[in-house]
């Protein structure tokens, strides 16, 4: 079992697809010689050449839109948007165009486009380089949305995104890039729409995404010491969502905490909470707890940044609150 970092796992999925399939190519800002702002595409220019590893202008509307046009014409482009904050610049092309061409054409077109991007707090990049905007995209019919939290998952899910015939917005979390793990020898595709249970438990289900999966696992270990058995579930794909796994877990534990780094209010967790109460209301023994960022832009000063985004302690506090309800 080879050990790969999350960063290397992303690169490996793209490289393997590009080795076997001429229709796959990557484009984005500073991804060629520089290897991307996060070093994800390092070495790919040397292996695949400038036709398939394309540096672009700083031009998100054109990058997303051109990726979509190439996809409609039969390619499987992987577009890198340097920071997910910059997805807002390509929003028109993603939301009005890529998400809707299949629908508006009555099923004549398909758009096998993957848009990779990354974000997340932790390095004090400030308010325009660290947002978590996944909730914006799960609201748009026609898009699929992935947020992977481990090297194995990111490799298998990215492969499936590349071979998906619909546009996929693929979120990576910046602080996870150095995270290492033994991964399967052969890349194993992970189907979109399948959750992963990281840890089984009996008393509380924590539904967590991205960095918060790891925070939830830390919190679960501490809760265990206090006699609370915690199940940690990562949906991995936010759209389509594995409702079945989610509801089954809550029906087993009867308590639910949702945890993400994005702003809590109107966040992805609100949808999870709505869904759980619709499908498992009679099984719930306590109100659903939400853990997320405070309702503020991300501040620069590290002490303020750490205050705004959630950590293991916040997840643990939520677990304790829900467990304390009779």
């Amino acid at each position, binding site marked *: 079992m080879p050990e790969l970092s999350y960063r290397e796992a992303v690169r490996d999925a793209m490289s393997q697809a590009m080795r076997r399939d001429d229709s796959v190519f990557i484009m984005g800002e500073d991804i060629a010689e520089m290897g991307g702002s996060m070093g994800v595409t390092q070495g790919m220019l040397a292996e695949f050449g400038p036709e398939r590893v394309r540096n672009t202008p700083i*031009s998100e509307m*054109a990058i997303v839109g*051109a990726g979509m*046009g*190439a996809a*409609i014409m039969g390619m499987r482009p992987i577009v890198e948007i340097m920071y997910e904050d910059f997805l807002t610049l390509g929003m028109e092309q993603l939301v009005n*165009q890529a998400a809707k061409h299949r*629908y508006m054409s*009555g099923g004549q077109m398909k758009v096998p486009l993957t848009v990779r991007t990354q974000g997340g707090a932790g390095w004090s990049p400030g308010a325009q380089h660290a947002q978590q905007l996944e909730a914006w995209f799960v609201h748009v019919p026609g898009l699929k949305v992935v947020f992977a939290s481990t090297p194995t998952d990111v490799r298998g899910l990215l492969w499936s995104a590349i071979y998906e015939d619909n546009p996929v917005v693929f979120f990576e979390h910046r602080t996870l890039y150095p995270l290492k793990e033994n991964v399967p020898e052969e890349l194993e595709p992970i189907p979109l729409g399948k959750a992963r249970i990281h840890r089984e438990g009996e008393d509380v289900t924590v539904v967590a995404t991205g960095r918060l999966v790891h925070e939830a696992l830390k919190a679960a270990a501490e809760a265990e010491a206090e006699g609370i058995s915690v199940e940690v579930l990562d949906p991995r794909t936010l759209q389509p969502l594995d409702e079945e796994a989610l509801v089954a877990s809550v029906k087993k534990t009867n308590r639910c905490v949702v945890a993400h780094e994005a702003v809590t209010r109107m966040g992805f967790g609100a949808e999870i909470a709505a869904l759980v109460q619709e499908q498992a209301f009679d099984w719930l023994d306590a109100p659903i707890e939400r853990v997320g960022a405070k309702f503020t832009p991300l501040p620069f000063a590290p002490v303020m940044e750490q205050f705004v985004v959630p950590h293991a302690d916040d997840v643990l506090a939520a677990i304790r609150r829900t467990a304390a309800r009779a």
Partner: protein
Amino acid sequence: MAGVEVTRARALSAERLRGMYREMLLIRRFEEKVEEQFRAGELPGFLHVAIGQEAVAVGVAGAMGDADVFASTHRAHGHAIARGSTPNELMAELYGKVEGVSRGYGGSMHLYDAARGNLGANAVVGGGLPMITGAALAFKLRGEPRVAVAFFGDGATNTGTFHEALNLAQTWTVPAVFVCENNHYAESTPMAQHMPITDVAKRAVAFGMRSITVDGQDVEAVYRAARRALSHARKGDGPVFLLAETYRLVGHYVGDPQVYRPPGELQELRATKDPLDVLRRKLGLTEEEMEAVERDVVRIVEESVEFARNATDHRPEDALENVYA
């Protein structure tokens, strides 16, 4: 008109030009019928006709190859007919029927026809341009001798997508032709109020892009200019900005009172700039010849209305299909 290049290509045969006249008249009568049906309350949605701009659609479409693709605008009926979508399927789309070019999911502003290279009319001004750069990139990467064509108006040249798409297309020298149908109004706003220049082709200069300006009311001139533009792109010499100076002889939308036009402008344009009159004079068509073409296209248009009315209605729940592949 400043900047119009003299074209030296061989003149088109009278037969070919008569065919173009027929196509332009078909588009005209189709759109007049669309206006009529809309006013009669038969058609839902927003409708924008391109009456007066038919020569651009027919000239460019006639120069395109079978494997070429295009993206259109909210004013798309002419482009679709000129590239071979049938009036029956187009009218059925405007009626929201299953047999429509977009199966009733698109409407007038979202006409598609994948089999005929129509990648979609677009209701966002400038929205289709990056897609054309990307489609052209796919052709270049695979070494296919195909060209991707974008239609858009003067108003679109103020959008970010226009500048980003043309910059990327020229930087990567992809086989694309950007056809600006300059009808001198962005909806109701005249050019002088929406851009600080009068020659839109200057915008291509900023990208180092080859540009050709043509009288958009002269279908033969448009055809020749488009041939040159397409050939340039197809050879791998890079994209071309094709500026067609044209005139919309009606309002922005069906029902537009056009309060923004100076007095007398519309009457003068109709008297001097109608592309059908230009071609009729050039061909010296007789009354009998014109009558024959007229009868032919009116019959096709009337049949399209019958076809559309009798076509299949959707079930409401069909709305849930086609969200994902």
